[in-house]
């Protein structure tokens, strides 16, 4: 991870956010989506961010994913300082440092599952076979038999597993999941959440998941609550209940 903005980070911290602010200009009105967020996520931690619509969690997700520039504050993922990056640097950052899992899966419909995964490697400039980490992840995901199918021939649960495989194929520092179970029935939701937890526990993948669903959040090691652009104390501390 050398993107030109490497900074000295605390060894155990994967995400370090201090005083993060994001203000959008909508017409002639300033909308303050994030109003000073402080958050640390340890390496290998699985954190759920929970909050109502408009709380700023999606904005935080986009900034951490390098899709959006912060207005103020410090954002470090690994040794990368996102606040100091230009557009092109954030594009490079996304190639191998973060993996996205979206609510709507967001697979390319024209490509097979395998090619959806391969294109992420291609964009990251990796052309050889995936590493041992990914081979083990693929085993956990259980989609080896479905890799030659196109998304339209797969169930929602299968598509989301492919999306997870694509997100981690480059062994990212941080896996960002935005409502990953939002389009799934409860059985598939549990399966996907189990997979995320397995990836976290067995392979040490750092995961930050945004969700409305308290049951989904309960799969995480820690739950962070957001409201009105702030991180707020949760109803029952920040430690997720045991499952």
């Amino acid at each position, binding site marked *: 991870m050398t993107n030109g903005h490497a900074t000295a980070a605390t060894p155990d911290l994967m995400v370090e956010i201090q005083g993060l602010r994001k203000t959008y200009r909508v017409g002639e009105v300033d909308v303050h989506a994030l109003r000073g967020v402080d958050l640390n996520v340890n390496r290998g931690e699985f954190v759920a961010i929970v909050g109502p619509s408009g709380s700023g969690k999606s904005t935080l997700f986009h900034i951490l994913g390098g*899709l959006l520039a912060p207005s103020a504050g410090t954002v470090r993922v690994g040794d990368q300082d996102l606040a100091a990056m230009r557009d092109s640097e954030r594009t490079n950052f*996304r190639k191998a440092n973060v993996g996205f899992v979206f609510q709507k899966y967001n697979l390319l419909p*024209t490509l097979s599952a395998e*090619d959806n995964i391969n294109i992420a490697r291609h964009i990251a400039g990796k052309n050889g076979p995936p590493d041992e980490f990914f081979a083990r992840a693929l085993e956990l995901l259980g989609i080896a038999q479905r890799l030659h199918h196109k998304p339209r021939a797969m169930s929602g649960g299968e598509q989301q597993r492919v999306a997870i495989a694509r997100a981690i194929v480059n062994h990212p520092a941080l896996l960002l999941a935005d409502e990953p179970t939002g389009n799934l029935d409860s059985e598939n939701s549990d399966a996907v959440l189990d997979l995320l937890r397995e990836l976290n526990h067995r392979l040490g993948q750092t995961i930050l998941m945004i969700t409305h669903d308290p049951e989904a959040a309960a799969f995480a090691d820690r739950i962070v609550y957001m409201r009105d652009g702030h991180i707020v104390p949760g109803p029952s501390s920040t430690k997720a209940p045991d499952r």
Partner: protein
Amino acid sequence: MINQLVIENLKHRPVRTCLSVLAIGISVTLVLTIVGLSHGMLEDNARRARGIGADLWIRPGGMQLGTGGGSAPFNEKLVPALEKFEHVALATGTAIYPLQFPQSIQGIDFEKFDRLTGGVRFVEGRVFRAPDDIVVDSEYAAERKLKVGSKIKLVEREWTVCGIIEPGKLSRIFLPIQVVQEFTGNTGKVSQIFLKVDDERNIAAVKAKLKETFPEYGILTLEEIVSLYSVDAIAPIKIFIRVIVGIAVVIGFVFVFLSMYTAVLERTREIGILKALGASPAYIMAILMRESALLALAGSLLGIAFSYGTREIFRILIPASMQQKIMPDWWPIAAAIALGGAFLGTLYPSYRAAKQDAIEALAYD
């Protein structure tokens, strides 16, 4: 991997892909057909000029190819006078009456024309005998569905086909010279004179002597005449071809622009996905550029195939009027024209795609 994505994208929208290829193919066909016709028709004229067998042509000074219709500036008494020049073995004049492009009637002295050309071969019928007899070549007969005995109306008169000859000698329609002189009001005059020299080594000397004697006349050797039947020698045809090439580029540009613009709109979300994965603007543009390049190449191949089709159509329907040549030399040029149009047509859509905001694109339904 990009190629895989490009091919899958094209397969995903087969109707649009086929229509784009067809549109580019038509523009390539347009170029290849026009260029093929220009070269084919000029070569056909050159072939028929060679078929005359004359060593020297005498035409009015400054007369352009394909012109001189109906004018007969030479007194026919000049013909026997020219025959008396040293080394001139044979001289014969013809009177021209132009018909609808590209045909003309040539009024000939059949006996001399037969000798000049080394023998006119009749496929069917015989030479003129009756006053309304007309001789045509087999390609004109095929185009007009004529046989010996068929009636044909030309110059406000009805003629009877008395003979059908092999093509390749000066013209496709022949009448006795006196008949053409009469209806063009040029009795006793001829439009051009052909000379046969006793030995080809004497051609230059005869030409020089004639130039000295008739400085106002155009006196050309066969090779000089043939060299004039080339696209490079005829400025209007060169300009015409350039205009057609320009139209082809515009057609390619418009169709590819519309196709790629629609593709970018349809794939807004997919572009957002690629950007989320870290695809740079150049990567996105490369996908769309390769897609349009593939369309252009497929369209070029289709256009080349279509050009064989148009050649067959001309050959079957109007073999005497239009001769299209297949132009392999122009295949890479036509493909470059298609690629150029496609490249121009993809510039803006791909720029727009590259500049798309990833978050907005991912939210697009």
